[in-house]
């Protein structure tokens, strides 16, 4: 019994830490993608990264506080040369996991014109945020983010303009230009 229980426990532990399991079929998309970003930062790695963030630099100190209580950050992003290189069903397994108790979809934007679909999910435990998941499905790009721990979406959004993260222009003229570029 022990022989069986230990491997099962070892297999389940990383899943518990990651909270949501990245579907295996996403790895198959890597073969089709022209660019792949696969970042997996568990608790100890986040702590290690935190030790190399300066307390003197205000931006780094802010990020250090932000990630200090996190247990994991997992990002998968695929860029494709052509449209429709991935199917909606590739993400469906993930969406099913995000229907579990505790998770709630707080944002869902869908553009038929551009074929974009963005979703933000929050996990709460006893009224406290304990996880964040983002799915951004664009015709040529699929991005999935899973953050385990207490974090608000706006905390990360507002990092734009700091810590080397670009801040998207709020200028309406620029927005129109972005939209035109997105449509092309």
């Amino acid at each position, binding site marked *: 019994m022990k022989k069986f229980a230990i491997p099962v426990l070892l297999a389940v532990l990383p899943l518990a830490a990651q909270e949501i399991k990245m579907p295996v079929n996403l790895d198959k998309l890597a073969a089709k993608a022209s660019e792949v*970003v696969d*970042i997996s*930062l568990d608790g100890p*790695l*986040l702590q*290690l*990264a935190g*030790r*190399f*963030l300066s307390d003197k630099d205000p931006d780094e100190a802010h*990020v250090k506080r932000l*990630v200090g209580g996190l247990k994991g*950050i997992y*990002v998968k*992003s695929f860029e494709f040369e052509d449209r429709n290189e991935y199917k909606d069903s590739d993400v469906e397994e993930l969406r099913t996991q995000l229907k579990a108790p505790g998770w709630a979809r707080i*944002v869902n*934007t869908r*553009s038929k014109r551009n074929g*974009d679909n*963005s979703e*933000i999910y929050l996990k709460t435990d006893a009224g406290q945020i304990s996880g964040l998941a*983002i799915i*951004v499905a664009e015709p040529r790009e699929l*991005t999935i*983010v899973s*953050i385990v721990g207490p974090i608000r*979406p*706006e905390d*990360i*959004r*507002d*990092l*734009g303009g700091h*810590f*080397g*993260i*670009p*801040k*998207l222009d*709020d200028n309406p003229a620029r*927005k129109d230009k972005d939209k035109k570029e997105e449509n092309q």
Partner: protein
Amino acid sequence: MMDDLEKQIKEALAKKEPSPFFEARVLGAVKRQQKEHRASSRLWWASAMAAMLLAITGSVWQHERNVREEAAGKEAKARLELALKITSVKLQRISRKVEGI
């Protein structure tokens, strides 16, 4: 009475031949002492060298560990920066879409 005392003193101060192996025993004792001194000196040097070697090895191991940890830390920081960059940009875009609706 005086004669007896004088006789006894004379006998006590009389030159006596050493026992046949006296010289050999003295030389043996000196040699043994020299040997022990050399052995103890060698042991001291060996201990000092071992301690020095241990200190150098420890210091090199610690340095290599620090270098490895620094490299891993910088790598983790770079990955964190990229993860936050991707997430922040996506959230900014979603935020703009929501505001634009």
